[in-house]
């Protein structure tokens, strides 16, 4: 059963920063980024439907805009959010690949090294996407 929030930071708690090391941080960030991405997915589906069906006016559209803004903004904030999204996706994806390999039994003894290898790949991949597509960001 879930512990009360104040107990998360007990000396014996797994998520007390004093007890957390690299793998635990990776687990926690994987989880938080996953939740963010679910919200993004919902707003992405909604925004695409909104655009293609031409629903941009009315109370429902306004309410949806307010909800989606932290995840899928239009306007001047869009490229910034796109960059944040790209970083979150790259982290979640590459750390996820590392998890799949570890589940298959590869790289467990050097999992910290592989974490950083995956992070380097994530940064390079994001850089490549930025190089290719930055002028297009925020356009959809």
């Amino acid at each position, binding site marked *: *059963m879930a512990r009360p929030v104040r107990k998360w930071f007990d000396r014996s708690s797994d998520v007390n920063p004093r007890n957390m090391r690299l793998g635990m941080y990776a687990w926690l960030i994987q989880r938080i980024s*996953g939740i963010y991405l*679910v919200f993004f997915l919902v707003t992405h*589906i909604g925004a695409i*439907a909104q655009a*293609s069906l031409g629903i941009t006016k009315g109370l429902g559209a306004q309410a949806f805009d307010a909800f989606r803004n932290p995840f899928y903004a239009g306007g001047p904030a869009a490229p910034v959010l796109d960059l944040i999204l790209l970083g979150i996706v790259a982290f979640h*994806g590459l750390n996820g*690949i590392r998890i799949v390999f570890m589940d298959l039994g590869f790289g467990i003894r050097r999992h910290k090294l592989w974490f950083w290898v995956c992070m380097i790949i994530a940064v390079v*991949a994001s850089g490549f996407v930025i190089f290719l597509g930055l002028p297009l960001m925020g356009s*959809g």
Partner: protein
Amino acid sequence: MMWLLQRITAVLLVVFLAVHIWTTNFATGWATLLRAGVDLSLLALALFHGLNGVRAIILDYGIGHAARRVLSASLVTIGFIAFLFGIYGLWPILFP
């Protein structure tokens, strides 16, 4: 089973997402057909992976047996509705 499907969709998502970013920005000619296939697959894969992830997180905090069934049924319903709505919204873009 869910664990395995979560891993399989994870790998597919990484591949399809890369293609999705490319086709969304640069697809012309034959690649528009690729784009349609990739986007529709991504819709299903991402919804499954995301909602199954939500389920895994909630189950980690320990809920009862009955609540578990309600949770799973709700997530399947949400996913199915979102999938149909997503196709409905995507269609005019993919096949103008």
